[in-house]
């Protein structure tokens, strides 16, 4: 079973605007950018309860965060903006898995850009798929050619000795 891992980079996702000042409790809020991944099998079935390991760009050996996907195969995390670069996310279940790379922008460049600009910058990242990237038609033609190769081989050797 092959996995299709689609990523939706959600920027400015979490914002808690809770007015809560009572008994000396203060709540502050800030906006952070999170990454949501959604993992599914090739059949379109979501990879529910799959294990997710998140690695920072600096330390690809030790997971920075661990978790599991929900029933819809989704998992979101908030990368540490002080470590820009290629974050790696491994989704794995029952021997099926995929390692995908998520670029996290440098906070310095992020600050210089305006808010809608950041969103536009994130657009190319919104669909990262590790699959071959062939359209269904291209894949159909490739599969057809391979099958024709096998049939051709069979016909070639079936013509018998002359």
């Amino acid at each position, binding site marked *: 079973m*092959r996995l299709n891992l689609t990523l939706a980079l959600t920027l400015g996702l979490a914002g808690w605007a809770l007015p809560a000042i009572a008994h000396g409790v203060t709540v502050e809020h800030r906006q952070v950018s999170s990454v949501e991944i959604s993992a599914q099998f090739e059949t379109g079935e979501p990879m529910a309860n*799959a*294990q997710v390991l998140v690695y920072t760009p600096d330390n690809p050996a030790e997971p920075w965060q661990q978790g599991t996907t929900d029933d819809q195969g989704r998992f979101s995390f908030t990368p540490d903006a002080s470590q820009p670069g290629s974050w790696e996310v*491994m989704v*794995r279940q029952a021997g099926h898995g995929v390692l995908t790379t998520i670029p996290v922008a440098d906070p310095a460049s992020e600050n210089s850009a305006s808010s809608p600009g950041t969103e536009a910058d994130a657009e190319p990242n919104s669909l990262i798929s590790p699959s071959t990237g062939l359209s269904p038609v291209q894949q159909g033609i490739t*599969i057809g050619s*391979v099958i024709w190769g*096998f049939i051709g081989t069979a016909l070639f050797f079936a013509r018998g000795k002359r």
Partner: protein
Amino acid sequence: MHIPDGILPAQVCAAGYAITGLATWYSLRQINRKPDPTAEIPKASLLTAAFFVASSIYIPVPPASVHLILNGLLGVVLGYFAFPAILIGLFFQALVIGHGGITTLGVNAAMMGIPALLAYHIFQSRNTVGKMLKEPTRTGVFSFLGGALGLGISALIFLGLIIFNIPAELDAGAERAAVLTLSIGHIPLAIIEGMFTTMLVLFLRRVKPELLEG
């Protein structure tokens, strides 16, 4: 049941390639000893195409969904041609459909190909072990055993490979439970493939019995 890239450590992948190399050499040598080594290539080539396509056919077995493998069938019908056929089929599956991977090609070929050779020997033993059975039943029973056990042994190897290679940072308990669930889904699949093998073999026995002599 294909193991994709990046799941197994490099040593296991290398060992898989070594075993596959040996098994390919052995199979090709057995083929070369036949009076006409090319005579069965048409049959082998067509079944390679069937094997290539079979992995895209999904059968929902709650809670998982499994896909056909047909390695036991290839073993029963092709004999020693089954190993190179599976190797070639897996190569194209990894390249075109994205099932399995190039680094794990050796492991996958050994995992599916060697049980296929066992299935062949199970089927061939029908004339020695299964003497007390009458003829159509004998072929039917042994082709079922070959088709079902070929897949079953592969599923067991898959289970073992995954369970003994769970990376330390994963939650081993959850991963083990998930692999077990998937493997249990292969029991009905083994029965389906066994019946499929029986149907094909009994059909061939009626229309072209010389194809089963191999």
